[in-house]
């Protein structure tokens, strides 16, 4: 029962009652109530405590949870704050957010951010609008094409307009076969990484048309997608303009060509009457004229020739401009060519007192492949100019070989013309090459000239693949030069003449260039040389006991001239002629006095300047062989020998020419040349053939361009007729000279030779002599049948022709004759009086040869007779001698006059 009691109560009971059992009964209920109360109270307290505990725990948990929630919330707010701060750094970031004020601030910040974003959206839209407007306002079409899918993702207004559809219809389409005519995969752009700018391409429109455009393509990347940004500009109009320009250009070129053709054609038309003027003036000059009339005619003749020259120049120039001039490359003897050119220029140079030098390497290959006509044209023009513009000093033609050849058969040649003339100022140097312009407007007045020469030369040089260059200094001189590569060939190995007896030579010349040239020449044949500038130096050198095998002495030197020096050598040093051979250099203008003197001084040979290698070698050879032609005058003329037979036979000559003027001219000439010959005319090829059949002429002049049948066909037919056993009739073609390949074609057709119009007597005579005299059955002349005095005194034309038109040389010959022939005649008479028949024959023979050489047929005839006449008939001899004198008088008077005229004409011309 103790368990039922509250412990405290039990204790109390025990204290008071000892034990619960001791409780009196009447108190039992009371005690029970009290215990009940105790127990209830205890129970209540325990319940309360229990509740408190539970509640506390719950509260704690609740608090924790609340705190967690608060913390989370705080965290969230902090994150939001941080985010806002990151997005909008301008907001001041209060990190703690614990008060309402902060949340308000947070809210404000968020609101600001939202407003900002809205603003940005507006700006973005405006920007988009702005960009779109710009793109649409452009006149350039712009598209953006996705690189992978080839879809058009953007096209601007212009692009859509060019295509011809609405933007919406275009966007999303693929580019190939839609806006671009290329097939997919063929596109130049999509495969490469480079950007392409400004290419000409085509655009395919909606209607299927192709528009030309200039297109630029640039690689770009938007929204992580690679794409191409293409822009294109419609160039339809530009293309049209381009086509128009091309058309215009073509028309211009065609017009230019037409003009050149016209010019080329016109020249033929112009030349024909001009030929007439030239021909007939020539004829007229040979007729009986008073000296005034002759003078006038010479002027006319000269003017007509000038006009012809000008016309030829113009023709050449226009041909070059039209590209119609062609270089006819042929194997050319360069040595010959240069010597010819020098010969042409020699007289003029010596007339002005200028040294003319030819400077060629000794070992130059003899033959080069070039157009000799054009090369001559260039060099003659340049030399002519040099001589024209030089008043003192020298003019030199240099031909150099440039070493370092790559191709064994092609060499690099530099042709240079150097002068010590007035020079050309630097600022005018380009101008002179322009056609029709000269360095100075006063030049034409002072020096004459058409102004085309240099321009043509320059262009000819260009056609040879080079450029005409100039070095010049005012007052010092000029050098025109050009370098060309030419195929070259050695000639026959030169006679390596063994100058065993000549080992050392003294060159005496005041002109340094000349000295060097001579030295080079001598060096080339293994002869060593010393040089002296003047007579004093020469004597000094010789005095130093150096033995010189030969002395080459120039005449024209300051101080002691050549003659004086030789005299000194002979007298003072005491080297007579045989011991000291001297080769005398002089120009042709030096007079006969000098010649005489030099002869007296025992000059072995005289060589006319400029010295040619061949001449020098000949002289040296003569010295070497010690065979000085005794008693013979030094040969002052070149070696070309032609045999001329007198013509006495009557011939039958046919002229086939459709042009009446030319026909008359030809007739006249032939009548003059072959008086008594029959002339048969034909106006066309057919008639020519017919006439050949009928008349069997001995010689035919055949024009080429004839109606009905041309010259080629005619001669072919004639040859056919001939082939059946007839003898070959020489046919000479009369060519216009303007048609390319004409000459070759003539020969091909069966002609023997060709001469170009305008025909002049000399040309005609040349061919007649060439072709007629080759006929084997022309009987040799018999002098007995010679009519006396019936021969031509002097045929200047033939001579000129023979000498290739070298007027200077002719003049020289005439001068020579004037100087020498009287002497010869005198010697002859002396010899006759001494009854030295040998001498007489010799002199006469020599005179005959000389006379023949210069086409003095009558003189030659007389000389021949003298030669053939034996010593028996003295009277006859005397008679002949008188005739000789008379003839000489006539001739030499004529010569003198000619010389005089020539010089005056040249003065006019120069």
């Amino acid at each position, binding site marked *: 029962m103790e368990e039922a009691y509250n412990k405290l109560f039990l204790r109390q009971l025990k204290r008071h009652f000892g034990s619960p059992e001791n409780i009196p009964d009447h108190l039992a209920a009371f005690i029970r109530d009290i215990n009940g*109360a105790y127990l209830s109270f205890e129970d209540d307290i325990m319940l309360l405590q229990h*509740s408190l505990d539970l509640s506390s725990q719950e*509260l704690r948990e609740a608090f924790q949870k609340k705190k967690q929630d608060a913390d989370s919330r705080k965290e969230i707010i902090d994150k939001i704050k941080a985010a806002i701060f990151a997005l909008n750094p301008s907001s001041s970031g209060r990190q703690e957010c614990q008060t309402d004020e902060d949340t308000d601030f947070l809210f404000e910040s968020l609101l600001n951010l939202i407003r900002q974003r809205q603003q940005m959206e507006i700006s973005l839209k405006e920007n988009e609008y702005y960009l779109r407007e710009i793109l649409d306002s452009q006149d350039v079409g712009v598209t953006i094409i996705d690189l992978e899918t080839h879809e058009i993702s953007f096209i601007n207004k212009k692009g859509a307009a060019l295509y011809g559809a609405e933007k919406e219809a275009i966007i999303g389409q693929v580019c190939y076969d839609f806006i671009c005519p290329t097939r997919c995969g063929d596109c130049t752009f999509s495969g490469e990484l480079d950007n392409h700018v400004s290419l000409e391409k085509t655009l395919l429109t909606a209607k299927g048309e192709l528009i030309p455009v200039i297109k630029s393509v640039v690689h770009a990347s938007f929204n992580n997608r690679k794409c191409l940004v293409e822009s294109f500009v419609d160039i339809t109009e530009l293309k049209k303009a381009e086509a128009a320009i091309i058309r215009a250009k073509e028309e211009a070129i065609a017009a230019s060509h037409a003009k050149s053709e016209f010019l080329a054609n016109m020249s033929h038309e112009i030349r024909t009457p001009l030929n007439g003027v030239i021909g007939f003036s020539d004829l007229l000059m040979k007729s009986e004229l008073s000296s005034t009339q002759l003078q006038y005619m010479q002027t006319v003749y000269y003017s007509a020739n000038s006009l012809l020259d000008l016309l030829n120049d113009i023709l050449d120039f226009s041909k070059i401009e039209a590209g119609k001039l062609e270089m006819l490359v042929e194997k050319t003897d360069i040595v010959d060519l240069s010597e010819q050119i020098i010969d042409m220029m020699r007289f003029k140079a010596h007339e002005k007192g200028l040294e003319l030098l030819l400077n060629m390497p000794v070992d130059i290959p003899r033959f080069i492949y070039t157009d000799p006509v054009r090369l001559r044209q260039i060099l003659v023009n340049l030399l002519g100019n040099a001589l024209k513009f030089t008043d003192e000093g020298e003019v030199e033609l240099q031909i150099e070989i440039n070493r370092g050849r790559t191709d064994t058969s092609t060499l690099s040649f530099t042709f240079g013309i150097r002068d010590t003339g007035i020079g050309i100022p630097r600022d005018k140097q380009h101008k002179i090459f322009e056609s029709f312009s000269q360095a100075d407007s006063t030049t034409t007045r002072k020096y004459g000239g058409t102004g085309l020469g240099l321009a043509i030369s320059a262009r000819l040089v260009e056609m040879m693949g080079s450029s005409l260059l100039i070095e010049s200094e005012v007052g010092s001189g000029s050098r025109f030069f050009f370098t060309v590569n030419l195929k070259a060939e050695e000639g026959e190995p030169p006679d390596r003449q063994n100058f065993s007896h000549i080992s050392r030579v003294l060159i005496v010349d005041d002109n340094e260039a000349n000295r060097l040239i001579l030295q080079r020449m001598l060096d080339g044949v293994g002869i060593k040389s010393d040089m002296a500038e003047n007579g004093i130096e020469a004597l000094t050198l010789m005095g130093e006991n150096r033995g010189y095998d030969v002395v080459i002495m120039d005449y024209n030197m300051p101080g002691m001239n050549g003659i004086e020096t030789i005299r000194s050598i002979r007298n003072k040093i005491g080297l007579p002629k045989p011991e000291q051979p001297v080769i005398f250099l002089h120009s042709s203008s030096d007079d006969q006095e000098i010649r005489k003197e030099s002869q007296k001084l025992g000059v072995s040979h005289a060589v006319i300047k400029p010295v040619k290698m061949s001449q020098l070698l000949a002289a040296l050879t003569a010295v070497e062989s010690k065979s000085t032609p005794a008693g013979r005058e030094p040969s002052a003329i070149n070696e070309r020998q032609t045999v001329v037979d007198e013509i006495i036979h009557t011939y039958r000559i046919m002229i086939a020419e459709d042009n009446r003027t030319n026909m008359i001219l030809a007739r006249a000439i032939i009548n003059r040349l072959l008086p008594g010959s029959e002339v048969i005319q034909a106006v066309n090829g057919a008639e020519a053939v017919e006439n050949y059949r009928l008349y069997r002429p001995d010689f035919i002049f055949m024009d080429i361009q004839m109606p009905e049948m041309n010259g080629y066909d005619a001669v072919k037919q004639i040859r056919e007729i001939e082939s059946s056993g007839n003898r070959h009739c020489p046919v000479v073609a009369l060519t216009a000279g303007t048609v390319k390949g004409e000459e070759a074609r003539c020969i091909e057709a069966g002609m023997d030779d060709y001469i170009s119009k305008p025909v002049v007597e000399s040309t005609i005579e040349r061919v007649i002599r060439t072709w007629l005299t080759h006929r084997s059955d022309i009987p040799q002349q018999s002098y007995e049948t010679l009519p006396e005095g019936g021969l031509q005194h002097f045929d200047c034309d033939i001579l000129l022709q023979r000498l290739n038109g070298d007027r200077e040389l002719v003049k020289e010959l005439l001068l020579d004759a004037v100087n020498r022939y009287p002497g010869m005649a005198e010697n002859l008479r002396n010899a006759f009086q001494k009854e030295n028949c040998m001498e007489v024959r010799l002199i006469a023979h020599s005179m005959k040869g000389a006379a023949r050489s210069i086409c003095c047929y009558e003189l030659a005839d007389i000389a021949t007779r003298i030669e053939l006449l034996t010593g028996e008939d003295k009277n006859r001899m005397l008679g002949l001698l008188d005739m000789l004198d008379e003839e000489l008088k006539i001739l030499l008077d004529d010569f003198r006059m000619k010389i005089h005229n020539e010089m005056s004409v040249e003065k006019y011309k120069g």
Partner: protein
Amino acid sequence: MQTEQLIYTENGGWMFVKQAEKKLNASLVFIFGHKDLLQDKEHYNHLKQLYPDAEIVGCSTAGEISNAGIQGNSLVCSAVSFEHTRFKVVNARINQADESFNLGRQIADHLFSDDLTHVMILSEGININGSDLTRGLNDRFGLKVSVTGGLAGDQSDFSETFLIHNGQVDKNLVIGIGFYGSQIRVGYGSMGGWDSFGVDRLVTKAKANVLYELDGQPALELYKKYLGHHAGGLPASAMLFPLSLRFSNSDKVLVRTILSVDEEDGSMTFAGDIPEGEYVRLMKASFEKLVQGAGDAAQYAVSSLGVENPDLAILISCVGRRLVLKQRTDEEVDAVKEELGPGTTVTGFYSYGEICPHYADGKQCELHNQTMTITLFKEL
């Protein structure tokens, strides 16, 4: 108004506690007592003999209150005669608790009259939704009529309660007594004296007056935790922790007591509604506060009566208070008596719920739990 009181006990039989000077011709007799005694016809007859003209109303209790104090297992009978006041007694049967609202209205309709001053309700204690009942009454009466009363009790058995109206003694009855006229003055007061403690708990699952879950956890679990070894005394022991129900949109705080528990679904049935979404807290009692509360209730009642020396005081106190006060329960009655004065006849019973206007709300009556609710009558 004249009153007298007699008590019947097994041992003592009928004994007058207070007797009128002259023979009282009572018109209204209140009888509160043990259900068994109530059903005994013999005792009814005795009363009938004594007061042949009276309407006899009453109910079973969890303890009876008289001038002599508190008894259980007895019958306390208080007879009243009115001089000027008219009264009317109606009763209605309730079959299911969800009829409570309509029943309230019905009774109100029966009783209503322009001069209706006060209504006293004696209701079935278990099979009723007291909140609905009061709402039904309010619905009809509005703010015009004050209503007090209580739910019958059944000791602490919570098994079945009985009501008596004249010869009819039944379960599931609701009796309404209406007092008419301006001569009858009624005062009332209701006070608890319980303290809420601990955390607020959210009513997460409840239906009407059945609570399932608090904060997502079964409510029964929570109670068992707090009751500890007292859990064995459920449902009665649950009265040790009534719930304080705080309405979120007003200051109103109500106390709710458990009526029954269901072990199967873990639900607890309360005498009044426990609305979902509202917050509740557990409450605990302290003697002093309870006793104080009773005293305060009496004071309120006296002040609302407006006059001194009430004639009759009907004390309806919650069984939960008796459970807590235990042997000191008498003290709360004493506290009340102190406020009333010597001449007042005190009766009443320990109920399963009290009906009285909430002091915050004014006239609208509410179902209260764990309170001492006092109704004072004085006829002028």
